[in-house]
Structure formats: structure tokens, C-alpha cells
């Protein structure tokens, strides 16, 4: 379901910076359905990848074979990302807060962490430079606190200052795709608000899974379920071994 919803965020012809896991599945689903001209770019240096098998990592050899270009990582970050060529970046995180700031670094204090997470990887710069980002994360009060323990990837506000004033070129996390609802950034305040509910989910349920008083958008829509074709593609073609689809 999350993969289908994330795939809908992508328009044909866009250039997408693909992360591993669900975003990877979502991008490949979009590519074989409504967005055949999607350009998939992986931070490993593969541009225009057409993987024959579902890549297990963003450095999978299947991303190289048959791709349009392979370049060094200095080019990926300088000539493509910093150059402003990425339309959409996908991000995930252990924590996402009220303003879309994401933490993938530590739970607890940095110097003496309770849980040490992997760190930024390319997430910090994707959050800053992609024209927009889409965040994918499962809802829970622990994952959606009012404020993250550590800002790895900046959202819409930092210490009360808006991202544009901080000099960030991209628009930031415009949508957060969860397993129960879609949140969207309020255009003025930059705060995440409820935009649409999955079938059978109530607003109260979503609000209970979020660590701040979640506002509702003007028109809280209802998310269409995946089509039969989407499900078949995901289960039989894209991820038959259920590497990413668990349930």
C-alpha cells in the first residue's frame, strides 16, 4: 500500500533520487505503470537504471548493467544534486517531527546515544537540494515526536527559521507517506498536517500516532487502494521474494 501511494507522487519525466527499500519499489512501480520516462538516479552513481531484478542495495550491480550513465559520486553530489537537477528525493527516518525534520543519526544525546542509527548518508543534502522530497515512514508516537532528537535532514523550520531563509534551494518534505495516512506540509507554516486517510482509518487513529496536536487539512481526502494491477506487479514482478513487502 505505501509503495503504491508513494509511486503516485511521481510524475512522468521526472528525475528521482532513489533510496533503497520502499522508495525503490515505488519508483520501479511508477516506471512500469504511469511514468515510463522517469529517470532513476541512485547516489551510487547509476543514472537511468533499468534493474533486471529488484536491487537489494543502492549499489547493486543490476543498477549498472544497462543504465544510461555511471558516474563518480563527486559528480552525483556536485553536478546532479547540488546543480539542482533532482525533482524528487525520497527519504525515510527513525524520527520525523512536526516540521518534517528527520533523524537518522541517534536516539538520545549525540555523545552518549541510546541507539546509534546509521547517520545521514546522502539524506542531509537530498533534503536540502531536491526540488521536493517525499518522506516514507510508518506511523507511531515514537517515530513522529514533536521534535526529533537530532536533525539529520532538515524539514521546513529549524529553530523557528524557515528553510528558504536558511538558503536551502529545495521545497523540502511536501508529503509524508505513512502506513495509515498521508501528511502534507502546510504551505504557510511548514507544519505537517493530515491530508488524506487510507481506507478504514480514522483521523483520531492517526492523531493518536503523532506526538503533536495534528491539524487536519481543509479537505481530508481518502486514499484510493492499490489497483489489482499494482498489487500483481508488486507481488509477482517487482518483489516476488518479498524483500521489501512484508505482509
Amino acid at each position, binding site marked *: 500500500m505505501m509503495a503504491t501511494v508513494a509511486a503516485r507522487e511521481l510524475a512522468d519525466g521526472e528525475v528521482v533520487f532513489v533510496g533503497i527499500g520502499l522508495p525503490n519499489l515505488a519508483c520501479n512501480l511508477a516506471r512500469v505503470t504511469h511514468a515510463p520516462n522517469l529517470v532513476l538516479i541512485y547516489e551510487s552513481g547509476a543514472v537511468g537504471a533499468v534493474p533486471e531484478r529488484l536491487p*537489494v542495495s543502492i549499489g*547493486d550491480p543490476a543498477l549498472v548493467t544497462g543504465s544510461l550513465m555511471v558516474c563518480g559520486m563527486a559528480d552525483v*553530489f556536485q553536478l546532479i544534486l547540488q546543480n539542482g537537477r533532482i525533482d524528487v528525493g525520497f527519504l525515510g527516518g527513525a524520527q520525523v517531527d512536526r516540521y518534517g525534520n528527520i533523524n537518522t543519526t541517534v536516539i538520545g544525546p549525540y555523545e552518549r546515544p541510546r541507539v546509534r542509527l546509521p*547517520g545521514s548518508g546522502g539524506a542531509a543534502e537530498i533534503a536540502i537540494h531536491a526540488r521536493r522530497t517525499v518522506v516514507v515512514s510508518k506511523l507511531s508516537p515514537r517515530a513522529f515526536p514533536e521534535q526529533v532528537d537530532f536533525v*539529520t535532514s532538515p524539514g521546513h523550520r529549524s529553530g523557528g527559521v524557515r528553510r528558504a531563509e536558511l538558503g536551502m534551494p529545495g521545497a523540502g518534505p511536501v508529503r509524508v507517506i505513512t502506513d495509515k495516512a498521508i501528511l502534507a506540509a502546510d504551505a504557510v507554516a511548514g507544519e505537517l498536517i493530515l491530508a488524506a486517510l487510507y481506507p478504514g482509518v480514522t483521523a483520531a487513529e492517526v492523531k493518536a500516532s503523532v506526538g503533536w496536536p495534528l491539524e487536519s487539512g481543509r479537505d481530508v481526502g481518502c486514499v484510493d487502494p492499490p489497483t489489482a494491477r499494482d498489487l500483481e506487479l508488486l507481488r509477482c514482478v517487482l518483489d516476488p521474494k518479498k524483500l521489501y513487502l512484508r505482509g
Partner: protein
Amino acid sequence: MSDVSKLMSMRDAVARFVHDGDTVVIEGFTHLICFAAGHEIIRQGRTNLTLARLTPDLIYDQMIAAGCARKLVFSWAGNPGVGSLHAFRRAVEGRDGPRLELEEYSHFGMVARFAAGAARLPFWPLRNYMGTDLPRANPYIRTVTCPYTGEPLATVPALHPDVTIVHAQRADAAGNTQIWGLVGVQKEAAFASRRVIVVVEELVDESVIRSDPNRTLIPGMIVDAVVLEPWGAHPSYAQGYYDRDNDFYVAWERISRDPGELRRYLDEFVHGVPDRAAYMEKRPGLATRLQAKQRRSSGVNYGF
């Protein structure tokens, strides 16, 4: 140049060029990570190393577990596609003796550190880090003011490893090295480094290199040692030679969670073998399972 051979065994290369206390880089983004070199460094008991790499991966997890490392310089420390690096986590969360010292960037920051080192500039500018907590965690992330626009830009300092180990598909005996598929920051890391060890799947004649010079990523003039070590990147992969051993990456989650099991792994597959050939002998069937299929490109004309 044909008579300048730098060919030596992995044992000799590590003995000569990797010293206690060095800053060591074994680079390769998923692709061409030289596990064979990491294992030899463990076997020779190097300590007090500063290990630098974008993605520490399983090899640095093993080196941390083996007690080689004092400090880690990195940007993403996980088991890609699987989960955590547990030896790393124990060392950082303070559950396993003295805390591992960390110096943490993002990928772009690490790439920029290697770029500065390779260009022998003291810093590299990048538009990054506004709104993040990374500069708070790492005082080496600073700013510079543009002399044209007046705007502040982030900077990172040059990284100059004492030794960089690059795994590659092929090189000649003088160290002229060709890589295809993902090239990561291998070139920048090699040029930034005081010493360079190249480890290859295939040793080729100089004429093979000269037949396609645009494929050369690292020139022999900056290389100190060439080691022929087929399968030296396993469980990482070498495009055109063998696939990534994803099963081992998954198994590492279980092995690395338990310090005892990790120790047994090192005893058997690192300390228990003298070199990579013996390591491969302990894994019958592996080579057959991971052998690459043929997807050969055609050549281009270099004539005039």
C-alpha cells in the same frame, strides 16, 4: 614504464604500507570493497587505526570487532539493505570497552573531503548543512564566505589518508588501474592518499590498459603496490566478475549481534586462513553461485 613492477603479495603490501596508528581507507561504494585487505590487516594485528570510508560496511565492522580501530570517519554506518552494524553499535553505544571515536559527515561531505585531499587543497566548499545538527556534532564542518556573492557556504577539511586500498577489476604491474561499474570515490581517495595499494581481480599486460586509456581511473604513477587477489572483494562484488553475496550480508546481522559468534567467524575465516585463496577454499560452491554472466560491451575506435 614496462619494467617497473610493483607486484607483491597482500601480506607484503600490508606489512610494508599499513602501520599502527595510520589513517586507512578501504573505499568502494557497495562495489569493489577490498575485504581481503581488511582481513590481512586484522591478521597482522594492526591497532590504533583511524578508519575512514563513506559506508563502514561489514569490513570495518569486522576490523572494529577485531580491535584494529581507534576512530571512525564516515557518513553512513549500516548493513546496506539489511540493518545495523552491531560491532560498530556496541563500540559507539559503549557496550564493549572504550567508546570508538567518531567523526561524522554526510556522503557529500565525505566525497568533498576526498576531493579536497585529491586536489591538495586544505578545504572544499559545498552548499550544505544549513538546518542540520551535523555541524554541532562535528566542529570540522565550518563555513567560508564567497568572495563574489558574500553568501556563506559550508566547508569540510581535506582528508589525507596514510594509505588507501582500492580494489579494481584490472591493472598492469605498474599499477595503471581500470575500473568500470560503480566508481564511487576510488579515484579521489587514491589521489588524496600518501600511499596507494591496488588490489585486482586480474593482472593484465600494459597493452590491455593502453588499448582503452579512457577506462584508466588511477595511473601507476601514484600507486605503491599491486596485489593480485581474485575474489578479494567478496562478499562485496566486482562487476563483470562476481555478484554481491547478499546471503552473507543477511547472515552478518546474526553473526555480528553476538560477540562470541563474531569472534568465531574471525577465528575461522580471517585468522584461520593465510590468504584469500584459502578463504575461498573454505566456501565450496561460492564461486559457482556468484560467477557473473556475460554482458560484454563492444569496443570503440581509438584510431586517427
